Each structure stands twice: as structure tokens, then as C-alpha cells.
């Protein structure tokens, strides 16, 4: 068994053996030995060295299993070095005998204890706190804190019975013993309904609120600290222990509290606990929020850190978290996840998120405020929480944090801004109808926020907000009515508010209502006359943008009017002019007039560059839009520069993972694919998918498209397995969304899956999939659409590679008949198809025709700016075979390639 002693190797030898060993390990396990014997048959010394190493593989693994035990043993010893945590079961402390160890943790060990002084029988929980200093000051503080704790008299807070110091000087506390289970186990075991969970939670809030009013903060509220007894009553354990711990902590054995590293449970820590900020009532409110989240969703809120434990911003709404859970999750309170999400969406989301705000100032001020709002909810009354106040949003903006990480709140934010401005304006106007003052107000921060973020229509945001919080959408009508009533004497403010409401109606999907409101505000701007050209022009151009997709003539009228106002704006209201130009640029882009679109974008950029403090959101939009236009124009290098710049400033201003980076990422990925850099395309594509996964729903078109494009990039990068897995996922989602009838999107995704299957050689499945795609396209695409050609082309490839040359010929000819009328003779895809047709003809024995087809086609492929290396390669092969000396065995033989050796 034991190998002979190895002679020491020189360093060079070692490197050589190591390299060979690495290579051997790269082989499949069963084949390794054979592989080594074959590969180094000529070098027996190397061969034997490698075989020897391979033979030690299992022993190395076993050795490390033992090493792990040694590691843990040393760790255990480190524990034993810390006094106060030695298992003390059976021993006596004060009047108490320790019966069993209940729990242990960084905050000490808890024992079940029986009274042992002959007085009377009593069961209690005895907790020994580790790591205390023994100086008199600490002891005094400890005594003071204990005094305060003993003042807590509440049915749901275990009473403090006793306390003192153990023989070796460690403080202990004795409290009532609660025979119960952690609250999370309790609700799961009894499958409490959401309503019952809320009632239980309210009980907990009341206990916390009681303690707060005694001046005691818990600091470590978490499920394991809340036990529910047999009567279903929750009890909150360990009140004030964290503080107590901190008060008496020795700087030697505890993480230094002076630097903010207070004892805590990281998974349940509030942001200020994590960052060493001031910890108070707000911190308990946050932890109650975490508990509420857990009770409502059945799982812990994902800490705002990513897989690598790097913190990221934003909190997921409970309703979204529920939907993200795996489909085989148990039902919660008798409801499937979708049912739970429906209940949570809206008010409960809002309440939980308000408790979970990063900034303590933005949370509920007290536990009581939180429970009061929940009681409002349970009573069917309006809740007080608003997702985020205008001021905190402004603050966050000022700090340039990611704006509105949770866009569900965006709408209500607008409403709040709107309400704030409304009352503010009304009051202000009441007091002094002074034009200058009004201008000052209008130029104020609230308006800037409003204009910057929400006034400019933003399809990305609309997508993310769309369809959510139905109850809030319903209130838009009432808001409009109030605005008209209170502001009929101030057309200027009314017009601006109507514009805002129109944006909101747009988000809500009421496009017609939105346009009607804009038309009304346009009339107001017109009546106001000089000074309002900018507002009017932006209104017109935005309306033109939304109208152009359905009523081109009407859109053109609006556009011309906006354009007529432009010359004046350029000089006096450059920001408005830039806004108008951006709208015009989008109209031009959608029309396919990319030169014009680029020109508008460039002019907008030039205007903004001339300004000291141009809104960065506009600048980003212009940079991004110009890049996009350049991509469409095929000016890829210039496009890359613009898009990279847009991406960088989006990251700077909105934050790294913000939804808005998706536009630049998508464009960059697309561009790199076009430039023949599949690795770079994959890089951007993967980030895009990650961003979309975080911000858009699993079923969103955006995520589907992003995955689809990433799959294509994988394919191009030679990562077929990943491409196919992703493509299958996309098809499955698309099929589910499309229903039994299928749709156009499904057709496209099927076609892409077919291409990928063809690439991996799964020709039979590829054929089945592409035929389904072709049939769907015939149903859902207009006749003559060049997209119809794509499944035919893929079918041709599949048939060709399956040896069905005649079927391939038909498919390629059909491809050309669909393609040529739409894109012309010189399109690279036409050339590619011709070359494959040539290959089919060659195999059919029509070498002459094949050569005539292939020669110009290859030139066309090589001359195109977009690179198709795979196709080019195959076309070159066709040419080479056509130009090779005539094979006397005849071309017919090639048809039987598959059966010949």
C-alpha cells in the first residue's frame, strides 16, 4: 500500500511534474490513468511521478478531512480560553441550579435553572454574560442597568427575577422561564393567516413600545428572541441585554464599542448598527420591520448585500420577495405566493418599507406609530405611511444616491411632492401674490426634483412602475379634481400640476387621459404667453413623441409647432430646448431616420455642454441616445465611446446597479456583438441580466429580451452550453406568457433556440423547434416581413448539415425570396444565404452554378462591417472545395459522408 519513498525533486522537475499532474487532473476521472500512460509513454519517469500523485489524491482528501477536525478543535480551544462559557450544567449559581443548556451565542450562554434554596420551586432562565470587565465602574453601570430592567412590568416581557456575579466574576441575570417556541416556528407550524400574523405582530409592537416608554431599547429583536407560549402569546426576551452587555463590556474581550462595533446579530442589525451609528428606538423599529417582513413573506429579508457579501442599496418589497420564492414553496396562511403578493402589494408593502428605511429619520418614529398604522390597515382605513417623503428624496438626490431604488414608491413620491407643492404654493400665493416670490418658489428644490425625475417621460421608469399599486392610480382622478378646485386662479401652477398628473396617467397606462391632460396644460401655457415657450414646446414635443406611434399626421403638427419654438428657446431656455430636441430625436429614431436622430441628440448635447449646471439626467439621456443612433448607423467605434460615457455617468449619478444602466448595457452588448467581440458582449450582457433580474419582474419583456441577447452572445463566444440553457429558459417563460396560441415573441425565441441547437449539433430537435417558429411567424408577422426569413435560413442550415441537401436548397431559396425584396441585394445576410445556397448546389452536383453564387457572396461577406466569422469560414470552405481539383469519385459521394468512415 505505502508507496516507496520519493526522491526529492529539483525545482525544475517539480514544475514539470506539477504541470503534467495538472493536465492529468483536467481529464475525466475514469480516463486519467489511461491518458497518462498514453501521453507520457516515452517518458516513464514523468509518467510514474504523475501516476504516483494521482494515487495520492484520495489520501490527500482524507488528510484534509482530518485537518478540518484539527482546525475545529483549535477553534474549540479558543472558546475554552474565553471564561464564562464553560458548560456549567449541574452546578449551582446563587440560589439557582443549572438544569440544562438552552442556548449559547456571542451574547452568552442561557441555562434552564431551578430554584435550589429550599424556598419554593421555580423554573427560570439564567443567562451568563461573557467577557465582562471587573472594574468597579463597570460593575456600577451593570447594577444600574439591572435596576432599570427590573422596572419592566409587562405581561409579554419576562420579569427579571435575580442577578449577580458568578464565583469567577461573570455577571448573570435570571428571568422568568418562558416555555414557548420562536415566533417564526409558531406561525409556520400553525400556518397562521396573514391577518393572524399581523395581530401577533401588534402584540409584539405593544411590548416594545411599553419598554421604549420606560426608556429601554431592545437592540436585538429577532425571531429567536420572541417566544410564543401555548396560549399563542408572544414574549419578548433579552430586553436591554445588548445595551447592558455594551455598558459593562471590557474593551479587551469585546469588539470595541468605541469604534461602533456594538454586539449584535449581523443578519438582524439595523443600518446604523452595522455602520456604528447611534442606536436607539429607531433601531428597534427597523428590527420590527425585519420581523414584519419575515412574518408576511415567510422568509428573512435578504440582507442588502450581494453574493460576495458586498452591501448594495435598496430593500425588496415584501410582495416582490414573495413572488421570487421558489415555486415549490409552501403556501402561506392558506394562500399561494401570488395570493400573498396581492394582499401585500400596496399598503402592507408601504408599511414594512417605511419601518425598514435606511435613514432612521425616515422610519416610523416609534413602535407605536408602526402598530397604529397597521391597525389603520386592519380597520380598512387609510394608512399614514408614504413610501418616501419629498424631503428625504431630495436629500438622497443631493447625496447622489441611487434615485428611487424601489420604483413602486416612485408614484406616491410624486403624489407627495405634488401635495407638498400644492399646499405650499397655495399658502404662498395666499400670502403674497408677488411674481418674484412665485418665481423663487417655482425655482425651488421641490420643483427641480419633480422636473428632473418625473416630468420627463421615462419609459424605463414607466415599465418598472406600470401596473402596480392600483389603489394609488385610482386616486389620480381625485388629485386632479383637487388641483382644479384650488388652483383655478393660478394657471401657471395648475398647468405644471396637470403635466405631472399626465405623466402619472402615462405610467398608469392611461395614455389617452395623459395626452388629454397635456393638451389642457398646453392651452394654459399658450394663454400665459411670453415666458412659457419652453414649457409649451416641451409639452408639444413630448405629446408628439407619444402620438407618433398611432397618429403620424397629428404628431407632425405637434412636432412642427415645437420646432417653430426652438430658435427662441436655444438662446433663452437652453434646457427646455435640449428637452425638446431629445423628444424630436426619439421620434426620428423610431421613424428610422437615424441621421436626423443623431443630429438632434448632438445638438442637445452641445446645448447642455454650454451650460454650467445642466441637469445630468438630460445629459446622460442625450449621450446615450446619440450612442444608440450611432450603433444603428453602423458607426460602432464612435458609438462605443458615447455609450461607455453614458454608462459611466449613469453609474456615477444613479448608482451601479440602478435600473437606468440597463439601456447603456444593452446597447454596448449589442454593439460588441456587432464588432465581433463576443467576450465583451457577454460581459455587458451578464451585467444587464443581473440588473434586470433585480429590478424587473421574472416575466418582464425586458428581462426576457436581455436573456435572449445574452444567449446569443454566449453562442457567439463559443459557450454553447450556457447559450442553450439560457435560450431554453427564455423559451419556457415566453411560452408560458404567450399561452397556447403562441405569439411573435415566442416565435423569435424559438428561432434563436433552434440556431443554438444547430450550433451544438442537435439537428433533430433544432428542426422541430425551427418549424414551430416558422409557423408562428407566418401567423403573427405581416406578410413580407424580412424577419420571416430567419427561421427559413436556420432550417436551411439544419437540413444542409443533416445531409438533406434538396430540402436545404428550398429553404435557402425561400430565405432569399423573403429577404431580398426587403433589404436589397447587398445586405450581408443575403450574401451569407447565397453562399450556403452555393454549398447546397455544390453537393447536388451543380459546381458551376455554385461557384457563380459563392464568389461574389464571399466578397460581400468580407466587405461588411459587421463580422460573421463563422459564416465567413464556412463560405471560404465552400469556395475552397469548389476551386479544388475535381474529385474523380464524384460529388455524389459526399452526400453519403455520414455513412462513410
Amino acid at each position, binding site marked *: 500500500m505505502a508507496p516507496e519513498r520519493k526522491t526529492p525533486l529539483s525545482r525544475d522537475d517539480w514544475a514539470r511534474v506539477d504541470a503534467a499532474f495538472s493536465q492529468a487532473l483536467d481529464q475525466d476521472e475514469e480516463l486519467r490513468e489511461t491518458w497518462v500512460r498514453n501521453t507520457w509513454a516515452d517518458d516513464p519517469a514523468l509518467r510514474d511521478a504523475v501516476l504516483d500523485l494521482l494515487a495520492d*489524491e484520495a*489520501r490527500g482528501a482524507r488528510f484534509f478531512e482530518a485537518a478540518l477536525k484539527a482546525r475545529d478543535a483549535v477553534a474549540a480551544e479558543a472558546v475554552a480560553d474565553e471564561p464564562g462559557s464553560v458548560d456549567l450544567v449541574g452546578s449551582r449559581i446563587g440560589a439557582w441550579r443549572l438544569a440544562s443548556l438552552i442556548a449559547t451565542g456571542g451574547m452568552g450562554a442561557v441555562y434552564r435553572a431551578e430554584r435550589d434554596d429550599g424556598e419554593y420551586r421555580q423554573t427560570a432562565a439564567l443567562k451568563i454574560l461573557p467577557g465582562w470587565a471587573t472594574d468597579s465602574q463597570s460593575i456600577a453601570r451593570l447594577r444600574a442597568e439591572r435596576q432599570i430592567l427590573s422596572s419592566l412590568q409587562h405581561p409579554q416581557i419576562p420579569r427579571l427575577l435575580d442577578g449577580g456575579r458568578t464565583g469567577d466574576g461573570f455577571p448573570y441575570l435570571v428571568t422568568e422561564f418562558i416555555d414557548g417556541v420562536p415566533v417564526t416556528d409558531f406561525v409556520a407550524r400553525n400556518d397562521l393567516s396573514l391577518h393572524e400574523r399581523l395581530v401577533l405582530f401588534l402584540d409584539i409592537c405593544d411590548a416594545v413600545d411599553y419598554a421604549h416608554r420606560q426608556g429601554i431599547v431592545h437592540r436585538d429583536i429577532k425571531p429567536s428572541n420572541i417566544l410564543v407560549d401555548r396560549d399563542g402569546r408572544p414574549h419578548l426576551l433579552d430586553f436591554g441585554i445588548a445595551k447592558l452587555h455594551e455598558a459593562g463590556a471590557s474593551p479587551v474581550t469585546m469588539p*470595541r464599542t468605541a469604534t461602533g462595533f456594538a454586539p449584535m446579530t449581523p443578519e438582524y442589525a439595523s443600518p446604523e448598527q452595522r455602520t456604528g451609528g447611534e442606536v436607539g428606538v429607531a433601531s428597534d423599529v427597523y428590527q420590527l420591520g425585519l420581523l414584519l417582513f419575515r412574518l408576511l413573506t415567510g422568509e428573512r429579508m435578504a440582507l442588502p448585500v450581494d453574493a460576495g*457579501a458586498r452591501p448594495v442599496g435598496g430593500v425588496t418589497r415584501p410582495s416582490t420577495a414573495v413572488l421570487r420564492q421558489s415555486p415549490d414553496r409552501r403556501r402561506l396562511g392558506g394562500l399561494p405566493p401570488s395570493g400573498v403578493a396581492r394582499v401585500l402589494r400596496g399598503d402592507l408593502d408601504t408599511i414594512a418599507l417605511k419601518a425598514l428605511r435606511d435613514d432612521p429619520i425616515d422610519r416610523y418614529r416609534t413602535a407605536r406609530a408602526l402598530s397604529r398604522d397597521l391597525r389603520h390597515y386592519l380597520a380598512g382605513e387609510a394608512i399614514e405611511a408614504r413610501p418616501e417623503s419629498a424631503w428625504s428624496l431630495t436629500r438622497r438626490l443631493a447625496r447622489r444616491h441611487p434615485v428611487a431604488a424601489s420604483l413602486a414608491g416612485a408614484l406616491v413620491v410624486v403624489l407627495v411632492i405634488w401635495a407638498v407643492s400644492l399646499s405650499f404654493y397655495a399658502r404662498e400665493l395666499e400670502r403674497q401674490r408677488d411674481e418674484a416670490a412665485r418665481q423663487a418658489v417655482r425655482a425651488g428644490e421641490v420643483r427641480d426634483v419633480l422636473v428632473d425625475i418625473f416630468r420627463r417621460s421615462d419609459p424605463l421608469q414607466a415599465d418598472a412602475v406600470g401596473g402596480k399599486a392600483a389603489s394609488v392610480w385610482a386616486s389620480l382622478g381625485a388629485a386632479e379634481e383637487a388641483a382644479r378646485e384650488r388652483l383655478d386662479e393660478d394657471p401657471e401652477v395648475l398647468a405644471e400640476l396637470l403635466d405631472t398628473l399626465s405623466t402619472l396617467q402615462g405610467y398608469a397606462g392611461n395614455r389617452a387621459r395623459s395626452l388629454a391632460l397635456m393638451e389642457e396644460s398646453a392651452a394654459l401655457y399658450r394663454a400665459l404667453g411670453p415666458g412659457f415657450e419652453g414649457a409649451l414646446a416641451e409639452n408639444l414635443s413630448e405629446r408628439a413623441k407619444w402620438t407618433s406611434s398611432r397618429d403620424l399626421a397629428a404628431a407632425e403638427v405637434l412636432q412642427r409647432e415645437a420646432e417653430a419654438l426652438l430658435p427662441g428657446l436655444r438662446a433663452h431656455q437652453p434646457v427646455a430646448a435640449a428637452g425638446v430636441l431629445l423628444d424630436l430625436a426619439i421620434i426620428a429614431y423610431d421613424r428610422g431616420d437615424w441621421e436626423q436622430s443623431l443630429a438632434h441628440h448632438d445638438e442637445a448635447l452641445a446645448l447642455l455642454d454650454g451650460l454650467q449646471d445642466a441637469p445630468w439626467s438630460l445629459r446622460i439621456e442625450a449621450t446615450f441616445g446619440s450612442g444608440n443612433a450611432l450603433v444603428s448607423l453602423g458607426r460602432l467605434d464612435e458609438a462605443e465611446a458615447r455609450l461607455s460615457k453614458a454608462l459611466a455617468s449613469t453609474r456615477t449619478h444613479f448608482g451601479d446597479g440602478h435600473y437606468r444602466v440597463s439601456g447603456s448595457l444593452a446597447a454596448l452588448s449589442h454593439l460588441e456583438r456587432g464588432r465581433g467581440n463576443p467576450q465583451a458582449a457577454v460581459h455587458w450582457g451578464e451585467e444587464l441580466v443581473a440588473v434586470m433580474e433585480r429590478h424587473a419582474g421574472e416575466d418582464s419583456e425586458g428581462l426576457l429580451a436581455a436573456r435572449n441577447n445574452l444567449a446569443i452572445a454566449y453562442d457567439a463566444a463559443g459557450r454553447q452550453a450556457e447559450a442553450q440553457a439560457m435560450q431554453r429558459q427564455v423559451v419556457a417563460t415566453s411560452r408560458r406568457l404567450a399561452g397556447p396560441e403562441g405569439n411573435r415573441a415566442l416565435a423569435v425565441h424559438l428561432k434563436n433556440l433552434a440556431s443554438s441547437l444547430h450550433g451544438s449539433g442537435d439537428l433533430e430537435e433544432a428542426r422541430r423547434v425551427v418549424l414551430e417558429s416558422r409557423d408562428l411567424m407566418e401567423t403573427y408577422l405581416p406578410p413580407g416581413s424580412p424577419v420571416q426569413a430567419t427561421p427559413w435560413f436556420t432550417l436551411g442550415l439544419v437540413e444542409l448539415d443533416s445531409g438533406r441537401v434538396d430540402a436545404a436548397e428550398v429553404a435557402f431559396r425561400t430565405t432569399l425570396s423573403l429577404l431580398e425584396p426587403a433589404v436589397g441585394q447587398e445586405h450581408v445576410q443575403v450574401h451569407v444565404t447565397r453562399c450556403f445556397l452555393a454549398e447546397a448546389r455544390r453537393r447536388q452536383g451543380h459546381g458551376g452554378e455554385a461557384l457563380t453564387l459563392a464568389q461574389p457572396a464571399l466578397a460581400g461577406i468580407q466587405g461588411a462591417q459587421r463580422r460573421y466569422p463563422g459564416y465567413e469560414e464556412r463560405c471560404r470552405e465552400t469556395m475552397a472545395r469548389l476551386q479544388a481539383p475535381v474529385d474523380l469519385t464524384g460529388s455524389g459521394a459526399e452526400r453519403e459522408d455520414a455513412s462513410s468512415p
Partner: protein
Amino acid sequence: MTGDSETNPGSENPASGDAHALGLTPGVYAQLKQIARGRLRSYRPGITLDCTALVHEAYLKISAAEPALKGGSQGDHFMAVASMAMRQILVDHARKRQADKRGGGALHVTLQEAQVGSEGPVVDLIALDDALRRLARRDPLLERLVVLRFFAGLSMSQTAEVLGKPLRTTERDWTRARVYLFRDLEPNGA
């Protein structure tokens, strides 16, 4: 054993050089070690020490105080440094125990219990640490891998991520490292 001579393995700090290279102040490094100790305190015999959780906790706490450590590759650096701290703490403890056994220390706690019933060879953590230093001279990457995977207890995929290597390569290298270290420490086979 290989023919390499080994000079005074205990004198050098395996991590401090790297910590400086990463721009960590000695203070941060000290805090890191302190958190690790705090975490160790919660360990009980029979419960596996969750080194991964430790490293994550340390990351959460320290990156909040040291924003420069946040994000991207810095996060990976952090994991690497935290792992080196784990190694140092464990090896220091092992050394201390060795010293105590020689009668040099005042501690009376022994850990026979934890070792009773453990199967296979009893591994000397100090010897393993020394062998790892020797291996580092031939292949520093293998050393980093072992520190992450073994001393910090990161999963295979986390280790791969921190090292910036594909998972398959990392798995292969883990096998290499185990075989070499095993051979160094058990030259006659187990």
C-alpha cells in the same frame, strides 16, 4: 519532507505584508482579528465552526467603517485578508497550546475531548502551516487557495470567485494542494 531547509517559520506574519499591500491600516487588521475572536467565542464543541459566516460578519462590520474596502475586487481582497487573519488566529492558538503543553503557559484547559473519536491521523495545524509556507515558495496561488478554502472555510465557488479563477480550475488546484501538502506532511503515506 522535501530537501528545502526551513528557517524560523514562526517569526514572520503570514498576512501582514499582504494587508499592507491592500492598503489596510494595522488598525483595521487588528479589528478584523478582534471580530474573529468574538466569533470564536460563540463556538461550542460539536458545532462546526462557521468560518464563512465569520468572514462575512467581519466584512459587514469593517466595510461599513472602511468604505474604501467596499465593492468589486476590493471585496475579494477583503475576503482574502480576512481569511489570512483566520489562519493567523488559528495557528497562533495552536502554538499557544503547544507552548502550554510544554509547561510554559498557565492555562489548564485541554482539548483531549475534542480529539477523542476523531478518525484518521491527528493533524498538527502548525506543521500544516509550515508545509503551506513551503508550498507557497513553489506556487503562491496554491497557498492563497488553501487559506481561503481551509482556514476560512469558504465554499469552492466562493474561493474561485475571490481568486478570480474558473471553478473547475480551482477544484483542480485544490486537489493539487491537498496532494502536495499531504505528501509533505506524510511522506510515507497515511
